[in-house]
């Protein structure tokens, strides 16, 4: 088998497996998996910037929340239907990421991390400040009547699962296309050696900006879908924690791998789910995993698989 055939087989098999699980999973895990798929889409968006371009952002909650609030506010205050609302969320994500990228990309390394962290914090506080519209920490619910798309009630578990799978598949295939495209390969080159890439004649800044926008758009779309599918929009999703989560998921699953974000999100989701039944201090798990990963497995799970078994894994 050629590498391309192997790659396609593997990823189509994963998508088919997720589709099949729809019919066999018990209700609780069925709901969880729908959630995981949306969050994994967020993680894949994060991975475009962190895993492939080598830019570590600590502010992706800004994009996730931009999508979520872009969608939610359009529904709540403009009475938009689901599709225009998703469009509004996506547009908000693109606008916010373009602005943030244009500013933050003037810095690099640690400064980039702190600048993104600060902008995201400012975004979170802005959500709180405009509590009249956003309802602040408390958030607001998207009513069931406003979550009907093409006659499908998205609050119905089966429909919701299919919608989450559709989002996930779209993101997965986009990333798969990206890593094989000329553009994606330049991003990897920037990650590996920025100065060399510049001296091959590539406009590094333009490529990085495009990566921020692409990553922001995917994160925002995931945020918008999360709000729409689960019917709730709240400031928690704009907080630092939601900037740390995708980093954690991607690091755990394997940065710069297509399937890593799904693996990492799935693992972490269930780790936290299980430990929160035992203790309220469930974020302890996140802390321990972060430290352990930086110490022992900086490549993550899929990264280790690639290094040891399947060198062709994209």
């Amino acid at each position, binding site marked *: 088998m050629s590498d391309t055939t192997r790659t396609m087989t593997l990823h189509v098999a994963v998508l088919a497996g997720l589709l099949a699980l729809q019919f066999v999973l018990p209700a609780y895990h069925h709901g969880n998996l729908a959630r995981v798929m949306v969050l994994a889409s967020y993680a894949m968006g994060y991975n475009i910037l962190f895993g492939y371009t080598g830019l570590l952002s600590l502010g992706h909650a800004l994009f996730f929340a931009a999508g979520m609030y872009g969608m939610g506010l359009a529904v709540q205050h403009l009475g938009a239907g689901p599709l225009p609302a998703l469009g509004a969320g996506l547009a908000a994500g693109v606008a916010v990421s373009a602005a943030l990228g244009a500013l933050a990309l003037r810095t690099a390394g640690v400064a980039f991390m702190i600048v993104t962290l*600060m902008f995201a*914090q400012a975004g979170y506080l802005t959500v*709180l400040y405009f509590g009249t519209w956003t309802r602040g920490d408390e958030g607001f619910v998207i009513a069931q009547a406003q979550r009907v798309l093409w006659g499908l009630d998205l609050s119905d578990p089966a429909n919701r699962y299919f919608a989450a799978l559709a989002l996930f598949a779209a993101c997965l295939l986009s990333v798969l296309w990206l890593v094989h495209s000329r553009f994606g390969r330049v991003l990897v080159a920037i990650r590996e050696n920025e100065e060399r890439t510049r001296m091959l004649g590539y406009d590094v800044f333009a490529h990085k900006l495009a990566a921020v926008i692409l990553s922001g758009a995917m994160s925002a779309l995931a945020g918008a879908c999360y709000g729409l599918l689960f019917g709730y929009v709240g400031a928690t999703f704009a907080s630092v924690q939601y900037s740390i989560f995708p980093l954690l998921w991607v690091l755990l699953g394997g940065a710069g791998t297509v399937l890593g974000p799904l693996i990492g999100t799935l693992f972490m989701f269930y780790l936290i789910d299980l430990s929160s039944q035992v203790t309220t201090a469930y974020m302890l798990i996140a*802390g321990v995993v972060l430290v352990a990963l*930086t*110490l022992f497995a900086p490549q993550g799970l899929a990264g280790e698989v690639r290094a040891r078994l399947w060198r062709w894994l994209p």
Partner: protein
Amino acid sequence: MEFAPYLFLATLEGAVTAAVLALTAVGLSLVFGVMRVVNVAHGEFFMLGAVLAWWVAHMLGGHPGLGFAAALLIAPLMVGLIAVAADMTVLKRIEYDPERTIVATIGILYIIQQVTLMTYGPDARPVEPPFNTRLAIPWFRFGEDGVELYWPWGLATTSYKLAVIGAAGVVLLCVWLLMARSRIGLLMRATQLDREMALAFAIPVERIYAIVFGLGAGLAALAAVLIVPISQAHYLMGGDPLLLSFIVVIIGGLGSLPGTVVAAILIGLSDGIISVFFSPTLAKILATLLVALVLVFRPQGLFGVRRA
């Protein structure tokens, strides 16, 4: 109250914030300056200082002065030791790689915070100040007989708050003496200037790093012990000091101690004054945006000099 005494009161409150902030931020700045790493868990060391202060005071009982004095010694020391342990088990092993250090310290942040939640619990608990005399402050006005003094209602501070400002000043002076005059300070500055050269001169760089990391955390803990009789000890209290220290260190110029102190005074005072006029949320939004923009457009800080 009239405007002028009100502003004076805000400035006084701001000075307390500034004093505590200066200590915390100098700790962060020291770590960044010498080790070139950003310690995201710095706020948790602050929190740990406050929580340990409560433990110590609570265990000892007796006169509040006794418990407080013990806390003042024990809490920073213990936090310093915890930080040294974190340095040796985690940071050293990832060779102080700047980006991986940030990820690791985020992990340490959650570990400290959540372990505190599991042991200390979610409540906010006060520590009794050792002394707390209310001091009314006179003000003046132009009456019929020229300037006359009066005591506006509400214009007062406490002896403890003044002591905090004084203590912070003394500690900062000690840090400066340590850095400028002592042998260990010399070694730290040598390591800061050129790590490779320091290694070549057989300076035990790894031990210096551990000491600096411990010292930085200890300073944050000390600041927390000082403030805990005024505010309270809570497991989530580390967020604000971390954010404010970031702001101070970045505006003061990364790694510059004098710049950090100046920026701390500026931010501490303006935090008190701004929140009189604006909502605290808006003040925070403006402050975080300011920091981000300073990093983007003036990475050497507002007071720093651009390096060639």
